């Protein structure tokens, strides 16, 4: 067991995997941005799936959109470092994501207010009008 773990942990050659990890932590690159984006996305998905409060569900959706924005910006930075002249397209797409998020928040919160006025609840499991 220990030799198996050691074989995973220690690479062939003179650099160990621990050294590679330390080097990656000291010099974070594109993949670290993507990891943070993925974790934010998962947190948002978990919030949408588990919370009962419809306003917190909306906030989780904002978290998901923001994670997508982070990926756009990170790839834009990566491609511009690689000398790609069209790399600014990622930033432009992020602007449009922010626009759509603002529109979605305005409409969604309007729906929440209308729903609260009619049903007197913000718990999503009590809003079951369409459930047969």
């Amino acid at each position, binding site marked *: 067991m220990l030799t198996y773990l050691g074989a995973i942990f220690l690479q062939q050659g003179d650099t160990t995997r621990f050294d590679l990890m330390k080097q990656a932590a000291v010099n*974070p*690159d*594109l*993949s*670290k941005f*993507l*990891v*943070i984006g993925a*974790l*934010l996305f*998962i*947190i948002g*998905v*978990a*919030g949408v*799936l*588990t*919370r*009962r*409060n419809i*306003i*917190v569900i*909306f*906030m*989780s959706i904002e*978290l998901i959109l*923001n994670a997508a*924005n*982070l990926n756009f*910006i*990170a790839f*834009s*930075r*990566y491609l*511009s*470092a*690689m*000398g790609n002249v069209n790399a*600014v397209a990622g*930033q*432009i797409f*992020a*602007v*449009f994501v*922010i*626009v759509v*998020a*603002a*529109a979605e*928040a*305005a*409409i969604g*919160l*309007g*729906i*929440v*207010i209308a729903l*609260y006025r009619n049903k007197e609840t*913000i*718990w999503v499991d009590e809003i079951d009008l369409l459930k047969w």
Partner: protein
Amino acid sequence: MTLSGYEALFFWIFGLAAIFAGLLTVMARNAVHSALFLISSLISVAALFILARAEFIAGVQILVYVGGVMVLFLFVIMLVNVGAEERGSEEIFNNQRQVTASLIFCLLLVGGMLYSINTGYRGLQARYPATQEAVAAQETIRDEAHAPSATGSSRITKDTESVGSSLYRYASLPFEIASILLLVAIIGSVMLARTLKQEASADDVAPENAD
């Protein structure tokens, strides 16, 4: 593209702050606390944008998200009554089975994503075989072309200029479509949020006959 020195330090600080604030957003009992944690998460992500040299998007994020959307959220939270949640008499999560199933789903998803980021990034590095030193040297040459700032400690970025000119040159049609989308959102939210009485007065019905 690798960060180094203080940039790397601030990357980890703001990245971890964004993730922790996101977690607290999902787990906070009070919806106002959720909104405040979401604001700190958004500001941390804006700092990550600055580290990725997207200063314009970082400014837009703080102005639009934190200054506009989150204030709207706070207003709506205060319009609807959330007293039961704060007192702890209401369960904030769905029932046990649903939470367990969705957390298992999320764990599978995050495992798959981390695996695919790992392998995909290796493929990307194989596709762009330039060494880090060569990329950094080219970047330094591109940075040298920018004018130095007044203090001389850094260089003036052209990020806003390039985003603006590309937005109007190459993305002008989506830009116009986005303006129509915002108009539709304004009108739609006014239509959705008005009361029965306001609706009746818009149709020239006397308020006492509204029901």
